[in-house]
């Protein structure tokens, strides 16, 4: 009995305080709603397409669109026949569309080591790692037929593919394809040079430089 009375007395005093409690409760609810409203990912996931982002807008799901057939982007009209096809008047030619400097050869070697060595290997004999794993072996660059081919031939093979070899046009820019072609000439020369090709003043360095070449090659292989 006593307990009941106590309770009612307490509830009475509570009633007097009720409005302030309600206010606190409402404030808390507002704050909570406010905080959770802040939990949005608008900035994390912005309404824009980053590379490779899928889309539901196009049927194939790609946000990257191929150019409409027949369109040519400004500056991409390929008028320079030699530079883009390795041909002049439709005939493969044995020359380069720009003068090849040492820097071009270095760049050619770098690109060759990245894109060609898996099959053609570092010396161009066609014993690359992928060939050792079962890919049909390409001919060595050091056979007479390929020594006689014009530079444009190598450019064309890289551009369009040849036999089992796919096109590398999407992976290697035209200028770099020419530099690789120039480096293939370097490889060919390295296997088919006579002492008379070396200027007499340089011959004394031959033993020295061959030592350097070996070490360069072995680090190349290690990579």
């Amino acid at each position, binding site marked *: 009995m006593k*307990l009941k009375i*106590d309770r009612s007395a307490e509830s009475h005093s509570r009633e007097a305080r009720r409005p302030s409690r309600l206010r606190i409760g409402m404030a808390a609810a507002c704050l909570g709603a406010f905080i959770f409203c802040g939990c949005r990912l608008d*900035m*994390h*996931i*912005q309404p*824009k397409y*980053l*590379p*490779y982002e*899928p889309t539901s807008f196009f049927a*194939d*799901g*790609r946000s990257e669109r191929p150019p409409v057939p027949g369109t040519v982007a400004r500056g991409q009209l390929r008028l320079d026949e030699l530079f883009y096809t390795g041909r002049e008047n439709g005939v493969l030619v044995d020359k380069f569309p720009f003068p090849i400097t040492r820097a071009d050869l270095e760049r050619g070697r770098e690109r060759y*080591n*990245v*894109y060609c060595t*898996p099959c053609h290997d570092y010396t161009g004999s066609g014993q690359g*790692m*992928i060939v050792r*794993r*079962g*890919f*049909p072996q390409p001919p060595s660059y050091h056979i007479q037929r390929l020594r006689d081919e014009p530079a444009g031939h190598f450019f064309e093979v890289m551009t369009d593919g040849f036999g*089992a*070899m*796919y*096109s590398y046009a*999407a*992976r290697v820019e035209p200028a770099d394809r020419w530099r690789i072609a120039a480096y293939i000439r370097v490889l060919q020369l390295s296997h088919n040079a006579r002492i008379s090709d070396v200027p007499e003043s340089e011959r004394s360095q031959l033993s020295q430089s061959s030592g350097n070449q070996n070490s360069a090659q072995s680090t190349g292989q290690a*990579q």
Partner: protein
Amino acid sequence: MGQIFHRSTNMVSRISIYGAVLIIAALAYALYAIAMSPWYTNVGVKLQQPVPFSHRHHAGELGIDCRYCHTSVENSSFAGVPPTQTCMTCHSQIWTNSSMLEPVRASYRNDTSLEWQRVNALPDFVYFDHSIHIAKGVGCTTCHGQIAEMPLTQRAGTLYMSWCLDCHRQPEKNLRPKAEVFDPFYQPPSRLHAVTVDGMEFTDQLTMGRYLRKEYKVASLQYCSTCHR
């Protein structure tokens, strides 16, 4: 009215008052542990991919250069996921009967995209550019981890802002010679293993890093707008 709480609860209240500090510290640690856990950062988590592509096999065992597939890494913000044509360059001839590779062949046949799950993704408000890092001597494995030892690709860094800033504040801790940027087996210099740059032998990362920083003109960019633009 009887006692609601037993006398022994006095001790509990005392402990909880003095333990408040400990409890807050434990909560903070728990939050930190969650934020650093693979569950939250995805570090070391292998995602379900359409084809179980192995970097260990391709980059490690076969020694294919990173750029063979990630062709745009040197001159673009993104490294580039290879088109199916790149896969088929070799797989039109080898492993042609493998059922594992059927999604690749189907993609090539039907001109549909292989839907790879992104392993490393930054929020859209972060601008990141691969090419400048490559050009300044930051190696692939510095951020992507021992990729040549990953049978399935996984995230190696938290990609937190603090993770970026660790290096941006002290680039010399991670720089390597430009010639070694794409070497997945590169080892930083140590007393047992010297790294040669421009004819100089270095046996200490910080010494070499400071030299390279000067040589490559590496700035320690910490402006907000460097990444948030």
